[in-house]
C-alpha cells in the first residue's frame, strides 16, 4: 500500500440507507468530507426500523445522523 492511497482519517458524518431500483436496500457510512465512504452491512430488522422512521439499534450508541433515501430521518444526537 502506498501512503498516498492510505485512507485518511475521517469522522462519520452520516449513515445513509438507500433502496435501489430493484428494491434492494444498501447502506453506507459517509465520513466528514464525504471522500471516505464505507459500506455498512445491513443486519436483520434494520430496514423495518428505518421504514418506521426509527434509529437502527446499532446507531443508538454514538447517535450519528441517519438518512434514508437522501432525507435526514434522525439528526446527530437525536434519539
Amino acid at each position, binding site marked *: *500500500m*502506498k*501512503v*498516498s492511497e*492510505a*485512507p485518511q*482519517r*475521517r*469522522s*462519520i458524518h452520516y449513515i445513509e440507507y438507500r433502496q435501489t431500483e430493484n428494491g434492494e436496500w444498501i447502506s453506507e*457510512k459517509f*465520513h466528514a468530507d464525504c471522500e471516505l465512504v*464505507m*459500506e*455498512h*452491512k*445491513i*443486519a436483520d430488522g434494520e430496514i423495518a426500523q428505518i421504514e418506521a422512521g426509527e434509529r437502527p*439499534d*446499532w446507531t*443508538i*450508541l*454514538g*447517535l*450519528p445522523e441517519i438518512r434514508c433515501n437522501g432525507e435526514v430521518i434522525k439528526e*446527530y*444526537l437525536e*434519539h
Partner: protein
Amino acid sequence: MGKVPFFAPTLEERLETAVNIEDFNNRILDDYDRKGSAELEADVQTARSIIPAASGSYRDFSYIATEIPLYDPSNCVGCMECVIECPDTAILGKVVEPDALQSELDQVDDSRDQRMLRSRFADTQKYFSTFEKKGEEGGLFGIFIDPTKCKGCAECVDACGDHQALSMVTKTDETLKQFQETFDFYNQLPDTPKRFISDRLLTDMMLSPDSLLYVGGAGSCAGCGEATALRMMTAATGFVHGPENFGMVASTGCNTVYTSTYPYNPYTIPWANSLFENGATFGMGVRSRWNQMGWEGKKLWVVGGDGAFLDIGFQSLSRMIMSGMDINVLVLDTQVYSNTGGQASTASFMSQRSDMAWHGKELKGKRENRKELANICMMHPNVYVAQTTCAHFNHFYRCVMEANEYDGPAVIIAYSTCQPEHGVADNAAMKQAKLAVDSRAFPLIVYDPRKGDTMKERLDLKGNPSVQSDWYTIRKTGETIDFIDFARSEYRFHKHFLGEIESPKITAGYGEPSPELLASKEERLANWRLLQELAGIKSGETAKVAPVKQSAAGSEAAAKQKAALMAARKARKASTSGDEGGAEANKQKAALLAKLKAQKAQK
C-alpha cells in the same frame, strides 16, 4: 545523636511503610483525581513512591479526544486486529454465550438501553457459525470501547481497514455516557470462555484476561507505536506463561515516562526502572536473584529505546547477552531519542532529520549509517535475535513466544512509530511500520540459533515481501516500493524532496529526492543485501551497489578537505625549496652529513 532505643521494623512493617496498596488506591489516587494532588502530604508512603499494579486503570482520558471509535457489528469478522493495535487498551473484544448475554441483558431496565447493548454483538462466522457447524453452541462477538482510555488516535480504524467495521464519531457528554455504559456492561459479562480462544490463532490471545497485562492509562502520545509493542509483548508472555510468572525492567526513555509517571501504572506485573543505560545489567541482578530463589521459569523482560540499547547502554546489553542468562530484551526502535525531544541516535536513518542532526544549509541530516543492532547481536554466541513490527502481528507474537521459549538471552527489536518525531499522523503507526518493512528500511528478521549450525539455517527473512529481490514489487500494479517511498511518507525526510512544500503540515514530500536521500537508499539496499547474503538468499537483481560510506554531503566535504590538504602540502613544498627557511634547512642537512662522514672516517 545520643543513645536512642532503637527497634528495627519487622518485614511486615517494612512492606507497610514501603507501600500501603489500599491507602494508595483510595487516598492517593483519589486526591490526584480530584484535587490535583495539592493536598497530599509528603508522608512515608511517598518516600519510595512505589505504585501498586494497574493504578492506570483509574485514569480518565475521556476529555482529551473529540472523537471515539464507533463499532459496526454487522461488518465485523472478529479478527481482533483493532484490539491488538490499540496502544492504550481502549478497545476490547469479548465472546459471550447467548444465554449468558441474555441473562445480563435481562437485568437492564430500559428497553432502549437493552437494544443498544444487544446491538454491540455480531454473530460472526469465526465465533458463531463455525462453532454451530461443529455442533457446539456458537458465541456472540462484540467490540467495546473504554472511553476513559481512548485517546481518539483512530489506529483501530486503520487496523480494521477493509472490514470497515470501525469509524470515528464525534463525541459529546451524552454519547460519552453511553460509551461508558456499554463498557460497564462489557465488564459485567463473564470472561470469554476458553473454548473460543484458539491456541492456533495468535490474534485471539487478547480475548484472555491473562494477556491484558497493560491496562492503559499511560501518558503516551495518541497512537504511539511503542505502547502497542509493550502491550503485545506483555500479552504474548502473559498468555503463554501466566501473568504470575512475569516481571519487567525498563530503561529510561519514553516508555518509562508514559508508563510510570506517578501515580499511574498501566502494568499488572512487577516493574522497575533504574536508569537510562543499565536496564540489561539491572535485569541481570533480578534474574540472578530470581534463579537463586528457584524462579528460573519466570520470564524477565528488559525494555527500552534504541538510545538505551544501541548507544548509552550498548555495552551493558552486550554484557548481558554474554552472560547467557534467560533474559529477553525488547528494543523499542523509534530511530531517535524520542523522550528528550528527538535527537539523532545511531539507529536513525542516514539523511533523517532530527535534533542534533539537522537539515541545514550545509549539512543535510544524519550523515552516518544506521547502526544495525540485530546484526551485532547475532555475532554474540547463543542469542535469539529478531527484528519485527506490531503491524506484522503474527510475526511479532511468534518472536515474543520464541524469545520466551529460548533458554538464554533474546533480543527483539521492534520498529516503533513515533508520531511527533517521525512526522506522521496519529493513526499511522501500523501503516508506517508496514511500509518500513516493505521499503527495506527495516527488514523483518528472525535469527534462531536452534535452527542449525550455519548462518543460513539460523537466519530467516520470511515475511519480507519479494524476499529474493532488491525491492518489493506489488504484483497487481507492477509498482516498486523502495526507501524513497517510505521517506516520502514521513515528515522527518521531507527536506530531501526538492520540490515546493505546499504547507508545513503536509507530511508527504513532493518532488525529486535529494542526493543524500538517494545515498540513504543505497545504504538501506546494502543492508538488505547483506541480510540476503547471510540468509543464503540469492538476489534476483544483479545491479551492483557501491559500498556506502557516507552520505554525499559527507564525501563532498571529505573531498574538499583532501583538496585543501593537497594544496597546503604543495605550498609547503614550494616554500622549503625556495625561500630562506628552505635554504637554512638545507644548510643544516649538509652540516649533518659532513659530521657523519667525519665520524665514519675516524673509525
